[in-house]
């Protein structure tokens, strides 16, 4: 095990290396493959989806997947409660869920990272203020915040991105602030300060590169949490507006059919599982590679 303080002792050099295939064990390789396939499917959704995901056929509702009685030709994963093709909805749902989770994680990172960096470098009142915001955020149930935002602003895709973006900012802020505080006491930063570097230069050249690895880990956690959160919001009737398919809304709205037409839920749930699974394994692997203890404070 290498210690962070040693790897980062040379100013300006990032301790974060992009790991390669040969480093990976079999689980990681599988996760990597799954991840790549999912990304491909998400990107190529319009090309590979067999049907329009929103095209209904009320006379062929709730048809089971291939291999079961009453299977409807061409609809490999069966049809849902409005006769829409589950496979196509999974594909488009994956695309949208992927985009939402990515956008949400990035926005959270930008908000939280900026505030954390600010708090860590500026200290004093600014730090107190940011940390007070963090404490407040932690103390209010997030579902409730989501609910209120959606209630005030109405539910649309933009608002959903905003809601998911707000999610988890406080975690980034805490992590970044903690890392920054530690780093500012490191010899190389003190040296840069002594040499007359501006705070901005210190932030971007010396500190930012060193907080990448804990952020990556938090990012993967946040990403899969957002996927789950989106489905929870759908469960509560607050998700993306129908008929638009996301993996979460398919699971959240379809759950009443679990006893009678389980394929409606199981197919998107399996995709969620693959997605979060791949992201988690990869994140954990990156963590091990970077070997940074994920500090919670």
């Amino acid at each position, binding site marked *: 095990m290498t210690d962070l303080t040693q790897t980062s002792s040379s100013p300006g050099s990032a301790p974060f290396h992009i790991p390669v295939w040969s480093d990976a064990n079999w689980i990681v390789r599988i996760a990597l493959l799954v991840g790549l396939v999912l990304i491909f499917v998400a990107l190529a959704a319009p090309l590979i989806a067999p049907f329009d995901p929103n095209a209904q056929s009320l006379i062929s509702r709730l048809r089971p997947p291939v291999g079961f009685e009453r299977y409807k030709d061409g609809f490999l994963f069966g049809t849902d409660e409005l006769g829409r093709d589950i496979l196509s909805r999974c594909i488009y749902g994956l695309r949208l869920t992927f985009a939402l989770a990515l956008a949400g994680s990035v926005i959270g990172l930008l908000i939280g990272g900026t505030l954390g960096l600010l708090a860590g470098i500026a200290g004093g009142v600014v730090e107190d203020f940011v940390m007070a915001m963090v404490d407040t955020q932690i103390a209010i*149930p997030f579902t409730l915040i989501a609910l209120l935002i959606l209630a005030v602003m109405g539910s649309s895709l933009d608002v959903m991105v905003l809601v998911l973006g707000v999610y988890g900012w406080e975690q980034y802020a805490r992590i970044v602030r903690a890392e920054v505080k530690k780093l500012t006491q490191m010899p190389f930063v003190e040296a840069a300060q002594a040499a007359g570097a501006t705070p901005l230069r210190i932030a971007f050249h010396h500190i930012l590169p060193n907080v990448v690895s804990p952020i990556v880990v938090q990012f993967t956690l946040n990403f899969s949490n957002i996927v789950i959160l989106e489905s929870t919001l759908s469960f509560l009737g607050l998700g993306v507006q129908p008929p638009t398919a996301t993996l979460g809304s398919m699971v959240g709205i379809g759950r009443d059919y679990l006893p009678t037409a389980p394929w409606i839920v199981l197919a998107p749930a399996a995709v969620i599982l693959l997605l979060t699974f791949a992201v988690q394994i990869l994140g954990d692997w990156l963590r091990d590679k970077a070997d940074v203890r994920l500090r919670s404070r």
Partner: protein
Amino acid sequence: MLIYVLRALVKMAVTLLVIVTLVFFATRLSGNPVDFVLGDGISREDRELLIAYYGLDATIGSQYWRYLVSVFSGEFGLSFLERRPVSQIVFERAWPSLKLLLSAISFTLIVSVPLGILAAIYRTSIIGSVVMVIAFLGYAVPAFIIGILLVLIFGYTLNWLPVIGDGSALHFIMPTLAISGMLVAAITRFTRNAMLDVLSQDYMRTARAKGLPEWVVILKHGLRNASITLLSVIGLQIAGLAASGSVVVEAIFAWPGIGDLLVRSAILRDYPVLQFAVLSVAIVVIVINAAVDIAYAYADPRIRLAKG
């Protein structure tokens, strides 16, 4: 130390005030309870009548002032819907939620600490990988899917377990499992990582050199030292769960808890209930966090110094 505590208390009070204020204005921006429960199919004049009756016709500023005054005199108001004191409603719901939370935490600790240690010790072998894969599953499936599947398997098909409410010990099994998925995943992971850090420390080598059996070394020295990190993580996770993690599971198992109350009162804009419930949850979270902070500072003097 006294100053540290005082500072913490003041911070707590400010946080609570901010929360009360935020919730107050956000809820009022988000609409009127009359439009959510009481008012479909009544005339416009009647709607005004009800709004006035519930005291919602005053300006938002004076409503806020009235609310603050009543809060400081210990009055949190009546639910718009149920017309009984909100404190009564919230406390009625708090105990079932707390019981479920305790059950989930106990289960999580029993399962994930050993798993985490196992995963750390056998980090490079297949055992470690398998443990981590199992742990990840908890992260990867929404709690309500686990919940409904459990209901269908152990309730509907096998008839082994009751599915409704918190009547007996058996009632706790499925909700605990459903709610713990995420917790087990998180704690296993953090235990593993904390143990990894500890296992490579010098004192572990010293302990081994003393000829102590390996399990003694791991449990006594390793776990004890890793527990500091664990404590803070568990505190955070519990705080998160206490806050909202259980909404969905409570709905599935008809658990008369606080998560269900929060969501229902938010959807129906039952402001008084919502405000008091959020405030109660916030206090619990803040107290847990403060307790963790203090325990942490107590366990590790360096932190205490750093916080100064």
